[in-house]
Structure formats: structure tokens, C-alpha cells
């Protein structure tokens, strides 16, 4: 009890420090910090529309985070979600546009989701195989492939996916309305894709109760023991990275079909990267991830409201997200080490 309390102290202190730094930054921008924080909260939860915005931003973050959690638990530090979101969105766009307006909505939705998941998975397969077969560091291969994915997207939007209309910034044709998940909350952008979050969270919670999850947990630290429990290194790496890639691809599919309505070069916009941070902030557990996603979604939506109200740059949200992650890293990572030592 005292040990867990003591572990809580650095987390609480760093949370406090995060709020103080945020207040200083608000003051630096010339606004009253209390008014600033109030505008931030109002922007996130003030109206029905704001709540919809918070949730619609939390949604893809949660999906990416739930997908990447098994890999991170197994010590496979894949940071390629950004590129996998891009590939998923591209594939979904291509398939939906090929099917066209005539196809029934259910076909467009199913085909888009499938295309997104497969493309995201395929983009993850390359670094997964490089890691499993040739011992190439997955942190670097996935990071480098993110930039290759961005180049692929730029090329697609300049050539075969380019809209025939004349537009100032590159984008694809508008997707058929039937490809979008139906709206969930009228007057907001929130759509039924959000049901994938509880489904994903329950799936992760169920998986965490299987013996395989335990074997994956010790895979990183006790490789020989994991092997005796029937986990081969190659299979652990490839399977977790495929799941992470497919989920990121699904997040890309939802973003392009149900939020943006056409493929833009900004489709990922950091959500893959932030999704991984949400997984870490959520302690790699389903409930924690969902809460962390809502928190990050609220910060992002709230900061936009703050910028409109007070002119304070919305990038304050990014600063606060970074500080929160630092606080979390200090808090439960330290606690886990203490618990680990108590067990050992």
C-alpha cells in the first residue's frame, strides 16, 4: 500500500507540473490561465457538438492504441502506425471509389474496412519480417517506413487517386456517401464507427486473460521461458505487428470514409503517432487506453476551441499531451518496476 502510494507521488507531482507549465504558456500568450483552462474544457465538453468532436478525435486514437497494445506488451516497439493509417486510408479510398456510387452501402463499408485492414497489415508485415528474420530494429524500420508511406500518398494524390475537379490542395474524388458509417449524434461528426472501440477494448481484455497474453508479456524479458510456453520469437513479433497494422489501417479507413469524405494528404495528421502514445499513457490496458484516448481527444478538441476563443495557439494541446505522457511514464513505469522487484 505504501509502495503504491509512494509511486503515486511522482505521477501527481508531474501532473501538477504539467498543469503549471500549461498555465505559464497560457500566460505567455497573453491570456489568463484560469480563463484559458476554462476555454479548453468548454471547447472539449461545452456543447453537444464539442462532445461529438472530442469523441470523434478519440475514436481513431483508441483504435490505433488498442491494436498496438499487444505488440508493446511483448516488447515489440513498433512506431509505424502513422504509415499504416495512411496505407489503410489509401486502400479504402481506392476500393470504395472503384466500387462507386452504385454499390449498396453495406458493401462499400465492408469492402472499405477490409481493404483498410489488409493494407495496414501488409505495411506492418515488412518491418515485422525484417525484425523476425533479419534482426532489423523495428523502431527504426517502422519510423523510416512512415516517411515512405507519406511519399506514396503524395504520389497517389498527384496521379491515380487525384480528383478530376480543380482544387487548391491535392485530394481524391469525394467518396460515395454510402461508404461512410452512419452518423451517431446529430449535428456532430460522430459516427457509428465508435462501436469498434468497446469491441476492441473487450477483445483486448479477453485476450489479456488468455495464457498466450501472459507468455507474450514475459516474451521480452524471459525469452527462454516464453519459448517453453510455446511462443516462438518470430510468431510473437509478426502476429502482434500484423494486428497493430490492421487496426491502424481500420483507423485510416474510418478517418477517410466517415470523417474527411475524401482522401487528403493530411489524412493521418499525426494520429498514428499519437495513438501509440495513447496506448502507453493508458498503461497498455483496455480501460486505460479508452480513457487516455478520450483525454487526448478532449485536449485536441478543447485546444481548437481555445484558439477560436482566445487566439492561444492550439498546439498547446500537443505540449500538454507530451507532459502528460512524461508524467505517466514517471508514475506507473516506476510502480511496475517496484512491483516487479517485490515479486522477484
Amino acid at each position, binding site marked *: 500500500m505504501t509502495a503504491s502510494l509512494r509511486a503515486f507521488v511522482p505521477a501527481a507531482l508531474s501532473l501538477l507540473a504539467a498543469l503549471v507549465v500549461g498555465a505559464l504558456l497560457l500566460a505567455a500568450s497573453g491570456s489568463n490561465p484560469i480563463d484559458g483552462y476554462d476555454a479548453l474544457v468548454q471547447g472539449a465538453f461545452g456543447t453537444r457538438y464539442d462532445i461529438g468532436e472530442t469523441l470523434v478525435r478519440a475514436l481513431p486514437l483508441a483504435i490505433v492504441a488498442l491494436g498496438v497494445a499487444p505488440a508493446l506488451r511483448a516488447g515489440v516497439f513498433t512506431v509505424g502506425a502513422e504509415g499504416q493509417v495512411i496505407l489503410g486510408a489509401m486502400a479504402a479510398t481506392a476500393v470504395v471509389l472503384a466500387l462507386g456510387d452504385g454499390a449498396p452501402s453495406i458493401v462499400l463499408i465492408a469492402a472499405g474496412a477490409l481493404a483498410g485492414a489488409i493494407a495496414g497489415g501488409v505495411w506492418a508485415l515488412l518491418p515485422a519480417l525484417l525484425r523476425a528474420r*533479419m534482426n532489423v530494429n523495428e523502431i*527504426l*524500420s517502422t519510423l523510416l517506413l512512415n516517411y515512405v508511406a507519406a*511519399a506514396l500518398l503524395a504520389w497517389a494524390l498527384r496521379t491515380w487517386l487525384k480528383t478530376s475537379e480543380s482544387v487548391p490542395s491535392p485530394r481524391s474524388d469525394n467518396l460515395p456517401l454510402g461508404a461512410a458509417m452512419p452518423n451517431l449524434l446529430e449535428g456532430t461528426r460522430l459516427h457509428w464507427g465508435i462501436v469498434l472501440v468497446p469491441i476492441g477494448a473487450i477483445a483486448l481484455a479477453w485476450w489479456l486473460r488468455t495464457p498466450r497474453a501472459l507468455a507474450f508479456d514475459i516474451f521480452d524479458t524471459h525469452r527462454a521461458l516464453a519459448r517453453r510456453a510455446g511462443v516462438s520469437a518470430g510468431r510473437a513479433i509478426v502476429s502482434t505487428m500484423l494486428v497493430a497494422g490492421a487496426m491502424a489501417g481500420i483507423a485510416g479507413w474510418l478517418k477517410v470514409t466517415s470523417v474527411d469524405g475524401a482522401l487528403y494528404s493530411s489524412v493521418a495528421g499525426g494520429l498514428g503517432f499519437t495513438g501509440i502514445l495513447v496506448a502507453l499513457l493508458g498503461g497498455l490496458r483496455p480501460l486505460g487506453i479508452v480513457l487516455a484516448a478520450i483525454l487526448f481527444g478532449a485536449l485536441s478538441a478543447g485546444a481548437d476551441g481555445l484558439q477560436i476563443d482566445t487566439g492561444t495557439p492550439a498546439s498547446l494541446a500537443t505540449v500538454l499531451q*507530451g507532459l502528460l505522457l*512524461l508524467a505517466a511514464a514517471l508514475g506507473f513505469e516506476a510502480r511496475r518496476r517496484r512491483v516487479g522487484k517485490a515479486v522477484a
Partner: protein
Amino acid sequence: MEWTELSFWTLVLAGAVRLATPVVLAALGEAIVERSGTINLGIEGMMLAGAFAGAWGAAQAGWWVGVLLALAVGAGLGVVMAGAVLWGGANQLVVGLALTLLAAGLSTYLFQLWQPSGQDAARVPLAPGVDVPGLSSIPVIGEALFDQSIFTYLAVALVVVVAWGLRRTGAGLAVRATGDDPVRAALRGVAPRRVRTLSLAAGGALAALGGCTLTVGYLGSFTDNVTGGRGYVALAAVIIGRWSPMGAMAGAGVFALFDSLALQAKGGDSPIPIEIFTALPYVMTLLVLVAVARGSAAPRALGRPLES
């Protein structure tokens, strides 16, 4: 311009040296950090912070103030990372990512406060270049070797000094011992925590100097995310270079050569899509990474937390 012409290669090589400089500085810092046993995923953020601090400082009081400010900010971020990882017991990869996010957010935020109107309106004084008369007009290699920013010559000098220092000095031995076996190093009277902290401070300062090279050395302005993943390329360069300063310089050179080639090739009318050239430096870095992946020369305790 055709690739068969000599002047094309003169431009490519000169550009490669320019593009390599920020990556070499960051990779040199990362080589020190990793030799001491820590992986610094915050390197991208430290570069970005250095790029911003350098630009701001230069605009206030001249280029060298920008450089000093960048060094201080980078070292400060390194110490923050050391505090969280070595004293706070936090996971170094998570802290690195958090610092990168923090630095990206802070630099964008402060830049918008500094320049509310434009995205790249600020022009800051550039650090001077060095042009050796005569030698700089040698075909092909002249401009690459004898007409560069002072950051380039500083980077080369630092690589030589660090390579010598790691191999020949007591401090270098302490760094290497801490990275290979902190427990035994501690038995021999080395303080692993202090060594890793100082290494992180030095690595942060060098990463920030690399970022500062972009803004104060070449661009004369700051833009959001101006580093564009070069910190991660520096991480790759360290692995490609087998954790040695000279090797890291060579690894950075691989990326920069293809980056420069792509920049020159983009200018001409080529039937090849320009995006291939954009992706090429990253793809080539990955390919070299694959080629050198077998048989690791990594410090033995790299990435492992200290037992406390």
C-alpha cells in the same frame, strides 16, 4: 542538367555535405548516448528544439547567441530525460517519445507566439560560411570540401575529437564501460548514473546543434517540424555506423547523398515520379540498416535500465 555532366555531381556532392551536417552532429551525440547504454528516442524533439532555440536566439542577438542557446536547450532536455529515466525509473523509449512530442508542441506554440502572422516570416542572421579561395573551385569535390558552413567543419572536428576521446581518454573508457556492463563499471569506481546523465546532456546538446544547423546554418528561418525525421535518421546512422563516431558520419552520409541526389533530380524533367526521390533517402537508409543488421556490435547493456 544531366547526370552525365560534371557540374551535376559537383552540386550533388556539395549538397550532400550540407545535408549530412545536421545528421552527423545529431548522430555523433547519439553515438555517445548509446555507447553509455541509453537509447535516446527524444533525439528528434531535441533537434527540433535546437532548431527553434537557435533561430530565436539568432534573431535576438546574432547567430552565435542562437548556437549557445540551442546547446543549452539541448543539454537541458538531455538532463530532463536523464532525470526521468535514470532517477525516476521511467521507460527510456516512452520518455523519448514524450520529449519529442513535447518539443514539437512547444516549438510550434512558441513560434506562433513569436511570429503570429506568418509560418516562416522570420529571417534570422546566418552563421558564416568558409570559402577557401582556389581550392573551392576544384571540379566535383571543391565545393563539397572547401565551401561550406562553419557548422560542417565544426562537425568534422567534433567527430575526430569524440572518436579520439571515446577510445583514448578515461572519460571515454567510463562511457564505454557503462554501456557494456554498468555493474562491473560501478565496481571499478565509475558512477554509471552520472556517466549516462552527462552522456545524455552531451547528446542532447549535439542533437540541438544539429537542429540549429538547419535554421541558423542554412534556412535562416524556422518552420513547424523543420527537422522532418532527421533525428530518426541519425538513430539509424548510429546503427549503420556500428556505434562509432566515424561510422555514424558515414551512415549520415548515405542518407545525405541520396537526399541530395533526389533534390537535384527533382529539378530536372524526369519521367520518374518525384515522390520516388522523396522516399529514396529513407528507403536507402532502411536497406543499409538491413544489410548491417546481422551480427550486432551494440553496447551490451544498451537500452537496459540500471539496477538500483
